[in-house]
Protein backbone atom coordinates (compact mmCIF):
# COMPACT_ATOMS: atom_id res chain seq x y z
CA UNK A 1 0.00 0.00 0.00
CA UNK A 2 1.50 3.34 -1.07
CA UNK A 3 0.48 5.58 1.83
CA UNK A 4 -2.72 7.53 2.29
CA UNK A 5 -2.35 10.65 0.16
CA UNK A 6 -4.83 12.77 -1.77
CA UNK A 7 -7.67 10.55 -2.98
CA UNK A 8 -6.73 7.69 -0.67
CA UNK A 9 -6.88 9.97 2.34
CA UNK A 10 -10.32 11.25 1.35
CA UNK A 11 -11.59 7.69 0.93
CA UNK A 12 -10.08 6.65 4.25
CA UNK A 13 -11.69 9.59 6.06
CA UNK A 14 -15.04 8.75 4.43
CA UNK A 15 -14.72 5.11 5.50
CA UNK A 16 -13.89 6.04 9.09
CA UNK A 17 -16.76 8.56 9.33
CA UNK A 18 -19.34 6.15 7.91
CA UNK A 19 -18.13 3.30 10.11
CA UNK A 20 -18.32 5.56 13.19
CA UNK A 21 -21.94 6.46 12.35
CA UNK A 22 -22.74 2.76 11.84
CA UNK A 23 -21.23 1.86 15.21
CA UNK A 24 -23.07 4.60 17.07
CA UNK A 25 -26.37 3.58 15.42
CA UNK A 26 -25.88 -0.10 16.22
CA UNK A 27 -25.02 0.54 19.87
CA UNK A 28 -27.98 2.88 20.21
CA UNK A 29 -30.25 0.14 18.80
CA UNK A 30 -28.87 -2.31 21.36
CA UNK A 31 -29.53 0.05 24.29
CA UNK A 32 -32.90 1.58 23.39
CA UNK A 33 -36.24 0.21 24.53
CA UNK A 34 -38.65 2.27 22.41
CA UNK A 35 -39.41 0.12 19.37
CA UNK A 36 -40.27 3.16 17.25
CA UNK A 37 -36.78 4.59 17.79
CA UNK A 38 -35.22 1.18 17.12
CA UNK A 39 -37.06 0.83 13.82
CA UNK A 40 -36.15 4.34 12.69
CA UNK A 41 -32.49 3.80 13.62
CA UNK A 42 -32.41 0.53 11.67
CA UNK A 43 -33.62 2.51 8.63
CA UNK A 44 -30.78 4.97 9.25
CA UNK A 45 -28.31 2.11 9.52
CA UNK A 46 -29.43 0.81 6.11
CA UNK A 47 -29.12 4.26 4.54
CA UNK A 48 -25.60 4.84 5.90
CA UNK A 49 -24.47 1.38 4.80
CA UNK A 50 -25.90 2.17 1.33
CA UNK A 51 -23.63 5.23 1.28
CA UNK A 52 -20.72 3.01 2.14
CA UNK A 53 -21.62 0.61 -0.69
CA UNK A 54 -21.26 3.55 -3.11
CA UNK A 55 -17.81 4.25 -1.67
CA UNK A 56 -16.96 0.56 -2.26
CA UNK A 57 -18.03 0.78 -5.97
CA UNK A 58 -21.13 -1.40 -5.52
CA UNK A 59 -23.71 0.99 -6.95
CA UNK A 60 -26.37 -1.64 -7.66
CA UNK A 61 -26.17 -3.01 -4.13
CA UNK A 62 -26.33 0.54 -2.74
CA UNK A 63 -29.45 1.21 -4.77
CA UNK A 64 -31.12 -1.96 -3.53
CA UNK A 65 -30.13 -1.40 0.10
CA UNK A 66 -31.41 2.20 0.03
CA UNK A 67 -34.78 1.30 -1.48
CA UNK A 68 -35.32 -1.94 0.45
CA UNK A 69 -33.61 -1.29 3.78
CA UNK A 70 -34.52 2.35 4.31
CA UNK A 71 -37.83 2.29 2.43
CA UNK A 72 -39.77 -0.94 2.42
CA UNK A 73 -38.50 -2.74 5.50
CA UNK A 74 -39.04 0.34 7.69
CA UNK A 75 -42.67 0.49 6.53
CA UNK A 76 -42.93 -3.24 7.23
CA UNK A 77 -41.51 -2.90 10.76
CA UNK A 78 -43.92 -0.06 11.51
CA UNK A 79 -46.85 -2.10 10.20
CA UNK A 80 -45.90 -5.03 12.44
CA UNK A 81 -45.18 -2.74 15.41
CA UNK A 82 -48.66 -1.21 15.28
CA UNK A 83 -50.08 -4.73 15.55
CA UNK A 84 -47.84 -5.89 18.43
CA UNK A 85 -46.16 -3.59 20.96
CA UNK A 86 -44.24 -0.37 21.09
CA UNK A 87 -41.63 -0.83 23.78
CA UNK A 88 -39.23 -3.67 24.46
CA UNK A 89 -38.32 -5.01 27.88
CA UNK A 90 -34.74 -4.23 28.88
CA UNK A 91 -32.71 -7.39 29.40
CA UNK A 92 -30.84 -7.68 32.70
CA UNK A 93 -28.68 -10.02 34.79
CA UNK A 94 -27.62 -13.34 33.27
CA UNK A 95 -29.55 -12.68 30.09
CA UNK A 96 -27.11 -9.80 29.49
CA UNK A 97 -23.81 -11.38 30.57
CA UNK A 98 -23.98 -14.76 28.81
CA UNK A 99 -24.73 -13.35 25.31
CA UNK A 100 -21.96 -10.79 25.82
CA UNK A 101 -19.43 -13.53 26.58
CA UNK A 102 -20.55 -15.65 23.61
CA UNK A 103 -20.43 -12.66 21.27
CA UNK A 104 -16.94 -11.62 22.44
CA UNK A 105 -15.67 -15.17 21.96
CA UNK A 106 -17.19 -15.40 18.47
CA UNK A 107 -15.78 -12.01 17.50
CA UNK A 108 -12.31 -12.95 18.72
CA UNK A 109 -12.34 -16.15 16.65
CA UNK A 110 -13.53 -14.26 13.54
CA UNK A 111 -10.85 -11.57 13.97
CA UNK A 112 -8.23 -14.30 14.35
CA UNK A 113 -9.47 -15.71 11.02
CA UNK A 114 -9.02 -12.37 9.22
CA UNK A 115 -5.24 -12.71 9.52
CA UNK A 116 -5.38 -15.15 6.61
CA UNK A 117 -7.71 -12.98 4.52
CA UNK A 118 -6.38 -11.06 1.51
CA UNK A 119 -5.79 -7.37 2.17
CA UNK A 120 -8.52 -4.82 1.40
CA UNK A 121 -8.63 -4.01 -2.34
CA UNK A 122 -6.27 -6.82 -3.36
CA UNK A 123 -6.76 -7.53 -7.08
CA UNK A 124 -4.90 -10.85 -6.83
CA UNK A 125 -7.04 -12.42 -4.08
CA UNK A 126 -8.78 -15.73 -4.72
CA UNK A 127 -12.19 -14.06 -4.80
CA UNK A 128 -11.13 -11.52 -7.42
CA UNK A 129 -9.27 -13.77 -9.87
CA UNK A 130 -11.85 -16.47 -10.47
CA UNK A 131 -15.14 -16.53 -12.29
CA UNK A 132 -16.09 -12.94 -11.34
CA UNK A 133 -13.32 -11.34 -13.39
CA UNK A 134 -14.02 -13.84 -16.17
CA UNK A 135 -17.56 -12.40 -16.36
CA UNK A 136 -16.12 -8.88 -16.64
CA UNK A 137 -13.87 -9.75 -19.55
CA UNK A 138 -16.48 -11.82 -21.44
CA UNK A 139 -19.51 -9.52 -21.06
CA UNK A 140 -18.57 -7.03 -23.84
CA UNK A 141 -18.31 -9.73 -26.48
CA UNK A 142 -20.93 -12.24 -25.27
CA UNK A 143 -23.78 -10.14 -23.83
CA UNK A 144 -22.97 -6.59 -25.04
CA UNK A 145 -24.70 -4.92 -22.09
CA UNK A 146 -22.78 -2.10 -20.35
CA UNK A 147 -23.91 -2.97 -16.81
CA UNK A 148 -22.00 -6.14 -15.96
CA UNK A 149 -24.11 -6.70 -12.83
CA UNK A 150 -27.26 -6.92 -14.98
CA UNK A 151 -25.51 -9.27 -17.40
CA UNK A 152 -24.44 -11.62 -14.61
CA UNK A 153 -27.78 -11.34 -12.77
CA UNK A 154 -30.05 -11.99 -15.72
CA UNK A 155 -27.96 -14.04 -18.11
CA UNK A 156 -24.92 -15.84 -16.67
CA UNK A 157 -26.69 -16.59 -13.38
CA UNK A 158 -30.27 -16.50 -14.63
CA UNK A 159 -31.05 -19.80 -12.93
CA UNK A 160 -29.89 -18.38 -9.59
CA UNK A 161 -32.09 -15.31 -10.05
CA UNK A 162 -35.05 -17.51 -10.97
CA UNK A 163 -34.64 -19.22 -7.60
CA UNK A 164 -34.43 -15.89 -5.77
CA UNK A 165 -37.59 -14.66 -7.48
CA UNK A 166 -39.25 -17.90 -6.43
CA UNK A 167 -38.20 -17.27 -2.83
CA UNK A 168 -39.69 -13.75 -2.88
CA UNK A 169 -42.93 -15.08 -4.37
CA UNK A 170 -43.10 -17.90 -1.82
CA UNK A 171 -42.47 -15.46 1.05
CA UNK A 172 -45.33 -13.28 -0.19
CA UNK A 173 -47.54 -16.36 -0.32
CA UNK A 174 -46.51 -17.40 3.20
CA UNK A 175 -47.34 -13.96 4.65
CA UNK A 176 -50.72 -14.00 2.92
CA UNK A 177 -51.43 -17.45 4.35
CA UNK A 178 -50.38 -16.36 7.86
CA UNK A 179 -52.18 -13.00 7.98
CA UNK A 180 -55.07 -13.51 5.58
CA UNK A 181 -55.76 -12.08 2.16
CA UNK A 182 -55.72 -8.28 2.30
CA UNK A 183 -59.29 -7.42 1.36
CA UNK A 184 -61.01 -10.12 3.39
CA UNK A 185 -59.10 -9.44 6.61
CA UNK A 186 -59.59 -5.70 6.09
CA UNK A 187 -63.35 -5.99 5.75
CA UNK A 188 -63.69 -8.32 8.74
CA UNK A 189 -61.43 -6.18 10.93
CA UNK A 190 -63.25 -3.02 9.87
CA UNK A 191 -66.53 -4.67 10.83
CA UNK A 192 -65.05 -5.68 14.19
CA UNK A 193 -63.62 -2.19 14.70
CA UNK A 194 -66.99 -0.58 13.93
CA UNK A 195 -68.76 -2.88 16.37
CA UNK A 196 -66.27 -2.14 19.17
CA UNK A 197 -66.42 1.61 18.51
CA UNK A 198 -70.22 1.37 18.60
CA UNK A 199 -69.89 -0.39 21.98
CA UNK A 200 -67.61 2.35 23.20
CA UNK A 201 -69.97 5.13 22.15
CA UNK A 202 -72.82 3.28 23.85
CA UNK A 203 -70.75 3.01 27.03
CA UNK A 204 -69.86 6.69 26.75
CA UNK A 205 -73.59 7.48 26.51
CA UNK A 206 -74.26 5.39 29.62
CA UNK A 207 -71.58 7.28 31.49
CA UNK A 208 -73.19 10.57 30.68
Amino acid at each position, binding site marked *: *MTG*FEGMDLAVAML*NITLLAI*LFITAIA*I*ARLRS*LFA*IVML*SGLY*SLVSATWFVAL*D*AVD*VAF*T*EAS*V*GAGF*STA*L*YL*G*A*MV*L*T*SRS*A*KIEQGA*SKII*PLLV*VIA*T*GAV*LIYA*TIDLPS*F*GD*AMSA*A*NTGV*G*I*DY*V*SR*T*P*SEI*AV*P*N*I*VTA*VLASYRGF*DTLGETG*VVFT*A*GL*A*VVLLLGFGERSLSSSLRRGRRSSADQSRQGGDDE
Partner: protein
Amino acid sequence: MLEFILERGNYWAIIGLMMIGLYIAFAATNLIKRLVGLGLFQTSIILFYISLSRIDGGTAPILYGADLESGHGDSEGVEAVAEAGHGVADAAHSGAGELVNIYSNPLPHVLMLTAIVVGVATLAVGLAIVVRIREAYGTVESDEVQEMDLSVALAEAVDEVGETQAASGAGAI
Protein backbone atom coordinates in the same frame (compact mmCIF):
# COMPACT_ATOMS: atom_id res chain seq x y z
CA MET B 1 2.60 -3.78 11.26
CA LEU B 2 0.65 -0.54 10.67
CA GLU B 3 0.14 -1.56 7.04
CA PHE B 4 -1.17 -4.95 8.16
CA ILE B 5 -3.68 -3.28 10.47
CA LEU B 6 -4.78 -0.75 7.84
CA GLU B 7 -5.34 -3.50 5.29
CA ARG B 8 -7.61 -5.41 7.66
CA GLY B 9 -9.18 -2.62 9.70
CA ASN B 10 -12.27 -2.74 7.51
CA TYR B 11 -12.86 -6.42 8.26
CA TRP B 12 -12.47 -5.86 12.00
CA ALA B 13 -14.92 -2.97 11.98
CA ILE B 14 -17.42 -5.08 10.05
CA ILE B 15 -16.95 -7.97 12.49
CA GLY B 16 -17.61 -5.52 15.33
CA LEU B 17 -20.88 -4.45 13.72
CA MET B 18 -21.78 -8.09 13.08
CA MET B 19 -21.23 -8.92 16.75
CA ILE B 20 -23.45 -6.04 17.90
CA GLY B 21 -26.19 -7.43 15.65
CA LEU B 22 -25.64 -10.93 17.02
CA TYR B 23 -25.77 -9.59 20.59
CA ILE B 24 -29.12 -7.88 19.93
CA ALA B 25 -30.54 -11.02 18.33
CA PHE B 26 -29.22 -13.07 21.28
CA ALA B 27 -30.01 -10.91 24.30
CA ALA B 28 -33.23 -9.14 23.38
CA THR B 29 -36.41 -10.78 24.60
CA ASN B 30 -38.66 -8.65 22.41
CA LEU B 31 -39.18 -10.55 19.16
CA ILE B 32 -39.28 -7.44 16.95
CA LYS B 33 -36.02 -6.14 18.44
CA ARG B 34 -34.57 -9.57 17.79
CA LEU B 35 -35.52 -9.33 14.11
CA VAL B 36 -33.91 -5.86 13.94
CA GLY B 37 -30.73 -7.42 15.34
CA LEU B 38 -30.83 -10.12 12.68
CA GLY B 39 -31.22 -7.39 10.06
CA LEU B 40 -28.11 -5.65 11.41
CA PHE B 41 -26.23 -8.95 11.25
CA GLN B 42 -27.34 -9.49 7.65
CA THR B 43 -26.34 -5.99 6.56
CA SER B 44 -22.90 -6.49 8.11
CA ILE B 45 -22.40 -9.74 6.22
CA ILE B 46 -23.32 -7.93 3.00
CA LEU B 47 -20.79 -5.21 3.86
CA PHE B 48 -18.15 -7.92 4.34
CA TYR B 49 -18.79 -9.51 0.93
CA ILE B 50 -18.79 -6.14 -0.84
CA SER B 51 -15.53 -5.08 0.78
CA LEU B 52 -13.95 -8.35 -0.40
CA SER B 53 -15.04 -7.60 -3.98
CA ARG B 54 -13.34 -4.18 -4.09
CA ILE B 55 -10.22 -3.81 -6.25
CA ASP B 56 -7.75 -0.96 -5.76
CA GLY B 57 -8.06 1.58 -8.58
CA GLY B 58 -11.23 -0.04 -9.89
CA THR B 59 -14.63 1.53 -10.53
CA ALA B 60 -18.22 0.33 -10.42
CA PRO B 61 -18.71 -2.66 -12.77
CA ILE B 62 -20.40 -0.70 -15.56
CA LEU B 63 -18.48 -0.62 -18.84
CA TYR B 64 -17.55 2.87 -20.02
CA GLY B 65 -15.35 4.69 -22.49
CA ALA B 66 -13.02 2.62 -24.59
CA ASP B 67 -14.32 -0.71 -23.26
CA LEU B 68 -17.80 0.00 -24.58
CA GLU B 69 -16.43 0.82 -28.04
CA SER B 70 -14.10 -2.16 -28.12
CA GLY B 71 -16.97 -4.34 -26.95
CA HIS B 72 -18.91 -3.57 -30.08
CA GLY B 73 -15.80 -3.91 -32.19
CA ASP B 74 -15.16 -7.31 -30.66
CA SER B 75 -18.70 -8.45 -31.34
CA GLU B 76 -18.26 -7.71 -35.03
CA GLY B 77 -14.98 -9.54 -34.89
CA VAL B 78 -16.75 -12.51 -33.28
CA GLU B 79 -19.31 -12.56 -36.08
CA ALA B 80 -16.59 -12.43 -38.71
CA VAL B 81 -14.69 -15.23 -37.03
CA ALA B 82 -17.84 -17.31 -36.62
CA GLU B 83 -18.65 -16.89 -40.28
CA ALA B 84 -15.16 -18.03 -41.08
CA GLY B 85 -16.03 -21.24 -39.31
CA HIS B 86 -13.98 -20.95 -36.12
CA GLY B 87 -15.25 -21.85 -32.69
CA VAL B 88 -17.14 -19.10 -30.88
CA ALA B 89 -15.43 -19.89 -27.60
CA ASP B 90 -12.02 -19.19 -29.11
CA ALA B 91 -13.26 -15.86 -30.47
CA ALA B 92 -14.64 -14.92 -27.06
CA HIS B 93 -11.32 -15.74 -25.47
CA SER B 94 -9.46 -13.61 -27.99
CA GLY B 95 -11.75 -10.74 -26.98
CA ALA B 96 -11.20 -11.42 -23.27
CA GLY B 97 -8.67 -9.58 -21.17
CA GLU B 98 -8.43 -6.54 -23.44
CA LEU B 99 -10.36 -4.18 -21.17
CA VAL B 100 -8.79 -0.75 -20.71
CA ASN B 101 -10.33 0.12 -17.33
CA ILE B 102 -10.26 -1.79 -14.06
CA TYR B 103 -13.62 -2.85 -12.60
CA SER B 104 -14.62 -4.24 -9.22
CA ASN B 105 -15.64 -7.89 -9.05
CA PRO B 106 -19.35 -7.96 -10.07
CA LEU B 107 -20.16 -11.45 -8.77
CA PRO B 108 -20.47 -10.59 -5.03
CA HIS B 109 -22.57 -7.58 -6.03
CA VAL B 110 -25.06 -9.82 -7.82
CA LEU B 111 -25.23 -12.33 -4.97
CA MET B 112 -25.70 -9.63 -2.31
CA LEU B 113 -28.26 -7.71 -4.38
CA THR B 114 -30.55 -10.71 -4.50
CA ALA B 115 -29.74 -11.52 -0.85
CA ILE B 116 -31.07 -8.09 0.23
CA VAL B 117 -34.40 -8.63 -1.54
CA VAL B 118 -34.74 -12.19 -0.27
CA GLY B 119 -33.79 -10.93 3.21
CA VAL B 120 -36.66 -8.45 3.28
CA ALA B 121 -39.07 -11.13 2.05
CA THR B 122 -38.06 -13.53 4.83
CA LEU B 123 -38.19 -10.64 7.32
CA ALA B 124 -41.82 -10.18 6.29
CA VAL B 125 -42.53 -13.85 7.07
CA GLY B 126 -40.85 -13.45 10.47
CA LEU B 127 -42.89 -10.36 11.30
CA ALA B 128 -46.09 -12.12 10.23
CA ILE B 129 -45.31 -14.94 12.66
CA VAL B 130 -44.63 -12.36 15.40
CA VAL B 131 -48.04 -10.77 14.72
CA ARG B 132 -49.69 -14.19 15.07
CA ILE B 133 -47.78 -14.81 18.33
CA ARG B 134 -49.06 -11.47 19.66
CA GLU B 135 -52.62 -12.50 18.80
CA ALA B 136 -52.29 -15.91 20.42
CA TYR B 137 -50.36 -14.96 23.59
CA GLY B 138 -51.01 -11.23 24.01
CA THR B 139 -47.28 -10.50 24.25
CA VAL B 140 -44.17 -10.48 22.05
CA GLU B 141 -41.63 -10.94 24.85
CA SER B 142 -40.15 -14.40 24.35
CA ASP B 143 -39.58 -15.10 28.08
CA GLU B 144 -43.26 -14.37 28.85
CA VAL B 145 -44.30 -16.65 25.99
CA GLN B 146 -42.08 -19.41 27.43
CA GLU B 147 -43.55 -18.94 30.91
CA MET B 148 -47.08 -19.19 29.57
CA ASP B 149 -46.21 -22.35 27.63
CA LEU B 150 -44.62 -23.86 30.73
CA SER B 151 -47.54 -23.04 33.02
CA VAL B 152 -50.03 -24.47 30.51
CA ALA B 153 -47.95 -27.65 30.19
CA LEU B 154 -47.74 -27.98 34.00
CA ALA B 155 -51.48 -27.48 34.36
CA GLU B 156 -52.16 -30.15 31.76
CA ALA B 157 -49.74 -32.56 33.44
CA VAL B 158 -51.45 -32.01 36.81
CA ASP B 159 -54.82 -32.63 35.17
CA GLU B 160 -53.59 -35.88 33.63
CA VAL B 161 -52.16 -37.10 36.95
CA GLY B 162 -55.42 -36.25 38.65
CA GLU B 163 -57.43 -38.13 36.03
CA THR B 164 -55.29 -41.28 36.27
CA GLN B 165 -55.44 -41.21 40.07
CA ALA B 166 -59.20 -40.86 39.94
CA ALA B 167 -59.42 -43.74 37.43
CA SER B 168 -57.21 -46.04 39.55
CA GLY B 169 -59.15 -45.06 42.67
CA ALA B 170 -62.40 -46.02 40.92
CA GLY B 171 -60.85 -49.35 39.85
CA ALA B 172 -59.80 -50.17 43.43
CA ILE B 173 -63.30 -49.59 44.69
